[in-house]
């Protein structure tokens, strides 16, 4: 029996470490993509939407297409905009949602219901998620618990290393603490294994593209 699965990928690293660049490298390979571009960094995405009416129109346009890519740049209240957008994305289904700086929407002990639904139930709608954060300690435990792959950039902050240690193990946390400025490693939850280099990039692409 084939089980419908979504993929959740978390990218954690300090500012300027290369999170967005790596994320772009992955997202550009995705057929059906939507970016909640909090920082307005993903100008490479062809369709930039600045209000939720445009989002509705975009998804109406995307309804009958095999491939589409768009980004929403919030200009008002991020939380309320995301809440509404999350509902639209959930209804749309079968796409990859990328959320930059997810700690702007959640905290270690709190995840907004709309994001929580995407995280918990997204697989039923084939909604995958790629999120980024500067600090591991600020990401919702619920979200980290449901994440399939962590991409970890260099980190020296003790609380963030503790969070990585708690989730990925002490050995991985130690490796992260010794990474160069733009170096990274991937840690796959299933099998508890680390990946690096080309293999990591291939695995990431496969996971984002939902290739089993």
């Amino acid at each position, binding site marked *: 029996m084939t089980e419908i699965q979504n993929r959740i990928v978390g990218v954690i690293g300090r500012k300027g470490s290369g999170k967005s660049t790596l994320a772009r490298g992955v997202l550009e390979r*995705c057929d059906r993509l939507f970016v909640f571009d909090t920082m307005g960094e993903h100008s490479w995405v062809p*369709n930039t939407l600045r209000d939720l009416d445009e989002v509705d*129109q975009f998804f109406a*346009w995307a309804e009958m297409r095999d*491939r589409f890519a768009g980004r929403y740049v919030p200009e008002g209240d991020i939380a309320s905009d995301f809440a509404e957008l999350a509902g639209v994305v959930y209804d749309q289904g079968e796409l990859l949602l990328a959320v930059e700086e997810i700690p702007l929407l959640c905290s270690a002990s709190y995840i907004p219901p709309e994001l929580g639904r995407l995280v918990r139930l997204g697989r039923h709608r084939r909604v995958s998620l790629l999120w980024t954060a500067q600090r591991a300690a600020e990401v919702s435990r619920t979200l980290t618990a449901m994440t399939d792959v962590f991409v970890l950039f260099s980190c020296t902050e003790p609380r963030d290393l503790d969070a990585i240690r708690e989730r990925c193990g002490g050995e991985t946390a130690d490796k992260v603490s010794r990474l160069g400025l733009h170096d990274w490693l991937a840690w796959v939850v299933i099998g508890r294994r680390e990946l690096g280099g080309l293999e990591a990039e291939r695995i990431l692409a496969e996971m984002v593209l939902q290739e089993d």
Partner: protein
Amino acid sequence: MFGFASFPAKRSEFGGVRVPVKIRIPDAWEGRVHSEVVRSMLQGWFQRPYLLPPDPGPGRARVSLNLPRRAVKVLEGLSGESPSVALRRLIAAHVPTLPAPRYARPFAALLEPRQVGFVSPVTDARLILRSPVWDAATGRWIPGVASRPVAMPDHAVEAKRAMQSELSFWFWLAVGAVVLWALWKYVGTGVSGVAESASIAEELPRFTEWIPSGL
């Protein structure tokens, strides 16, 4: 035809002994001429004689009247006619006052077709028998005729027809309104839907197609 029965006569209040008298009468009179009625006519005529109309002629109907023998004899002598002709002339003078027909056969009235509801007079095959009428101006009888029933106004039927006609009018008016509404609804929706689709179509091309990069 006229004749005295052979069985014994009996005494009566008017005219003495009554005897059965059998005569032929016009069909229209059938069931309406009875002994008591004719005796009353005889009594009235003898009290105040008047000119009798001509004989309407014998019909196919027959009636047996129990009449005072003497009175019939006097009438016969005064009119100079046979008893049957004299009696028919006497009865003819009172045709308008003759009672409604009685039926000799039991339940005959129940067996006769009756007009009820919306029965069209045209489809009613019964004949209406009209009595001969004496026309005093010409001094001649207008003979009785048998004719088809004429459509007589029936207020209940007319009222029902009027109501039916009115209901039919409102029904078709309502049907027309529903049809117009449906046309407006669906055609209008279709037009607005097309316009909306066109509007959307105008907006949709502004989105850019996405071509993901290969691995």
